[in-house]
């Protein structure tokens, strides 16, 4: 939007707006610019003495980004208009490129705002609550409970369930179906980072808080402001961090590492775990007060083996989806294949079912998927289901054991090595050399 106070520079505004993909609209001094989806420019070549008053009047009616433009490269004019509420002052023609840069940046910010809104709408369609497949009583009970929490954006939710049961999917559905849908959904895998990094990751840090802290950095809680933070694998949280999370939940404020100020955060916390937290509390590895604070609305997702009637509909849904993804006709599941799917244990739950169906789709050349197509002789995959391949090459067994331990410890090599009874360097060698660590395989 352009408020021209004189007829100087009139020739440049159209081309500048065009270059930046903006629509140019002229307004009069007494108009109230509507909405925030605008950049305002007050142009006053030759009448710079009127700029400050016009800026002040406009600023009272809008908080949109505002630039004042004149012909005088004078610090006093610049200071006066900035004091009156302009974001910047440009003296043409010298500052023409700077002004273009300001308009381009502003246009980009407007574009980002639109992009954010469209993205949230798209995600909301993708993660519709009704889109969660299944009609088994156990799932329906969990979903009914979840639907009660959706309208209350401050209520903390704890989702429990085995790996692959869809905890993150449910968390996203709660977020995108609720009043925070236009805010960010920030997901954090608490098991992926060591404690010292996770603290700074979650709560941010101030400049100089530690050797590497060259600049202040907001953490994920701040980035999730007005949205949802999804803390996956909360059961892996170190005890010292549990205390800090508890404070964040109780006081709705966080303190950056090395900081002294408490910063308010408006965030819904959804935590998830496959660990039995009550048992962890009894064992003294998880704080009881944090458990009760998280357990405000517990939602337990059932394992796939307890959702027998859901397996085939989910498999068919996945087949149709993958057929579209891979540009193939939807294959038919034979009766034997269906019996096999229903009869399996599915320790990896829906994630495992999805992988098995996708694999069968990729390898399928006949348009029919039979029981044999749903099998895969995969050492490492079997390992992640909790058993080691046998009989097999020793190196395969070793690789599988290493992968299994790393998955179980969330990638913590020291802990994985401790569980395997070897040193960390040896674990690294086994990883580097696919189960072989040279003659003797010394631990020393």
């Amino acid at each position, binding site marked *: 939007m352009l408020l021209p106070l004189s007829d100087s520079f009139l020739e440049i505004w159209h081309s500048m707006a065009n270059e930046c993909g903006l629509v140019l609209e002229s307004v009069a001094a007494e108009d109230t610019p509507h909405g925030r989806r605008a950049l305002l420019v007050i142009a006053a070549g030759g009448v710079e003495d009127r700029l400050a008053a016009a800026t002040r009047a406009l600023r009272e009616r809008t908080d949109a980004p505002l630039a004042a433009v004149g012909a005088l490269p004078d610090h006093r004019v610049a200071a006066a208009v900035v004091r009156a509420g302009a974001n910047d002052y440009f003296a043409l023609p010298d500052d023409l*490129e700077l002004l273009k840069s300001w308009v381009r940046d502003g246009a980009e910010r407007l574009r980002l705002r639109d992009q954010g809104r469209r993205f949230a709408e798209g995600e909301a369609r993708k993660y519709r609550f009704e889109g969660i497949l299944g009609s088994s009583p156990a799932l329906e009970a969990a979903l009914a409970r979840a639907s009660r929490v959706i309208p209350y954006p401050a209520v903390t939710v704890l989702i429990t369930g085995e790996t692959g049961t869809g905890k993150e999917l449910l968390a996203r559905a709660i977020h995108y179906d609720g009043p925070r849908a236009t805010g960010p959904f920030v997901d954090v895998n608490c098991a992926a980072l060591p404690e010292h990094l996770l603290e700074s990751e979650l709560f941010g840090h101030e400049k100089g808080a530690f050797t590497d802290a060259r600049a202040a950095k*907001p953490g994920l809680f701040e980035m999730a402001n007005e949205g949802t933070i999804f803390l996956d694998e909360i059961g892996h949280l170190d005890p010292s961090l549990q205390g800090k999370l508890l404070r964040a939940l109780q006081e709705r404020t966080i303190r950056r590492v090395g900081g002294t100020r408490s910063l308010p955060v408006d965030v819904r916390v959804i935590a998830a775990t496959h660990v039995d937290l009550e048992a962890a509390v009894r064992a003294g590895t998880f704080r009881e007060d944090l458990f009760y604070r998280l357990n405000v609305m517990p939602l337990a997702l059932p394992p796939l083996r307890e959702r027998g009637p859901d397996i085939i509909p989910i498999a068919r849904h996945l087949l149709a989806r993958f057929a579209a993804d891979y540009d193939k006709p939807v294959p038919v599941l034979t009766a034997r294949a269906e019996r096999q799917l229903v009869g399996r244990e599915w320790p990896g739950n829906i994630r495992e079912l999805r992988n098995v169906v996708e*694999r069968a789709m990729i390898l399928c050349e006949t348009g029919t998927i039979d029981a044999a197509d749903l099998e895969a002789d995969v050492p490492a995959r079997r390992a992640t289901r909790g058993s080691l391949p046998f009989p097999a090459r020793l190196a395969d067994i070793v690789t599988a054991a290493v992968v299994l331990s790393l998955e179980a410890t*969330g990638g913590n090599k020291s802990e994985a090595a401790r569980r395997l009874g070897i040193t960390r360097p040896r674990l690294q060698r086994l990883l580097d050399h696919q189960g072989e660590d040279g003659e003797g395989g010394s631990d020393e």
Partner: protein
Amino acid sequence: MSKPREGGAPAPSLPSRARALADAGAWADVSALLGRHRESIRPHAPTATLYAESLVRTGRASEARTWLESIVPAITRDRSSLRRATVLTGAAYFELGDLASARRWFHDTLELAREDGDEPLVARAMNNLGAVENVQGRRAEAIANYQLAAAAHQRMGSARGLAECYHNMAITFRDLSQLDNADELEQRCVEFARDLPDPRLVALARLGRAEIALRRGDAALAEASARRVARDFANGGDPVREADALRLAGVACTTLGRFDDARQLLDEAVDRTRQHGALLNQAESLRARAELSAAVGRLDDARTDAASALRLFEELRAIDDAAKLTRWIEGLPVE
């Protein structure tokens, strides 16, 4: 000496012409055009920065670094150009393999971007910092940066940023042997990339998944996926990545004991990468062919290919790969 005027255009049509070429992706032309006016554009921050970008994008990292170091101190008022020049300096150092300097410049970028509320650049700087940490083998730090970058992309609703970030994070998890996490992230990348739509990024993530399948020991799935991805890259006119997919399919065939198929695929991958001067891909294809030759007892061929791959790894300063390959060559049986 008078202070350079950052905003004054030296020749009215030059910045617009250069910007139009840049918008069309003609970076070599941008570089040629602005290179002829180096001295006149030097005090003109937006155009000087655009020239630096053209140098980075056309692989002239050393020239870009020298140029940027000469212009950055003079940029004071034009914060937009300063931010871009700062991240480009980091990128130039990264390309040159000076990771400590790259890291420092990306941190500076992050600070500037935060001060100015430039969220896309915040996300980009964190993603770049993740890449630096990953190359330095500091995987946890890499993931920490990628997670923050993903959160920033999520705030902005940038599907492309998220897709690229998830792909990078997947590579780090793959290097950590956390294959389930890696696969999950590649799948997310595919979902976002398909919605964009960006077929090249979809294919990249699927190639990542094929690699994960191979590491899990599912060579049949890896082969089928990699062959499919090779076709996608061929259709998209990307012969270097097509060759990379062929290499992976070849390795999968070697694992499955289908040595003739493997030989055919790997020969094609080596030829294709040689033809297009993609040195790292060529080295990886040669190494894969050396492993195939060793598996079928053609030890002389194995040594020849391995030695060629080793030379390329050394030339590219891929120290880890060179060290591992040296050990592998030493472990070959003596005839």
